[in-house]
């Protein structure tokens, strides 16, 4: 539990979350959401929750992104906001 590392990862997570909500392309938004998920994984490793971080790296950043990309492939990339 290192406070400086924790603060850095939290700031990056907030920036990436805001970027994922504001980018004008859905595929980019999903890639940014994957990056957000990976920062969450780093945060949990830093807090000592290794099992949860492992699950997040396998499920959140891996399989979840594959689901989103599959849904985008069947719908559209276009968004207005």
């Amino acid at each position, binding site marked *: 539990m290192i406070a400086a590392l924790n603060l850095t990862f939290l700031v990056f997570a907030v920036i990436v979350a805001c970027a994922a909500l504001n980018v004008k392309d859905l595929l980019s938004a999903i890639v940014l959401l994957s990056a957000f998920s990976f920062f969450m994984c780093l945060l949990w490793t830093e807090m000592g929750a290794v099992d949860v971080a492992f699950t997040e790296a396998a499920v959140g950043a891996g399989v979840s992104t594959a689901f989103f990309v*599959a849904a985008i492939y069947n719908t559209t990339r276009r968004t207005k906001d």
Partner: protein
Amino acid sequence: MIEWMVTKHSYWFYIILIMTGFYGMMAKNNLMKKLIGMNIFQWAIILYYISIGSKKGGTIPIIDAQAAVRHAVRAADYINPLPHVLMLTAIVVGVATTGIALTLLVIIYRKYGTLEEDEIIEALKK
């Protein structure tokens, strides 16, 4: 005041993340963006639960074998494993329910040809 800011600065970031996800769920027009906001909201809450379990001076909850043989396991040396277990199940269930939400989005796109909320409402009024 300064000490209060230092000891609780993490909670402020959790609140900012929750607000980001909440705003995305309410204000965005695209349904996929709403789903992304919901995911951010969910992960912020999981992050708060995990941070409850952390202890200053504690290590990861895998018990040292030598200490266990000597019956000298002290609970203060290890991080609380209970929130980890609850959130481990929450993450996997969250991904499964995200799969159902994406399925519903695919069905909506097949029926209306768009994912924008206002265009769907226009199509529903006809």
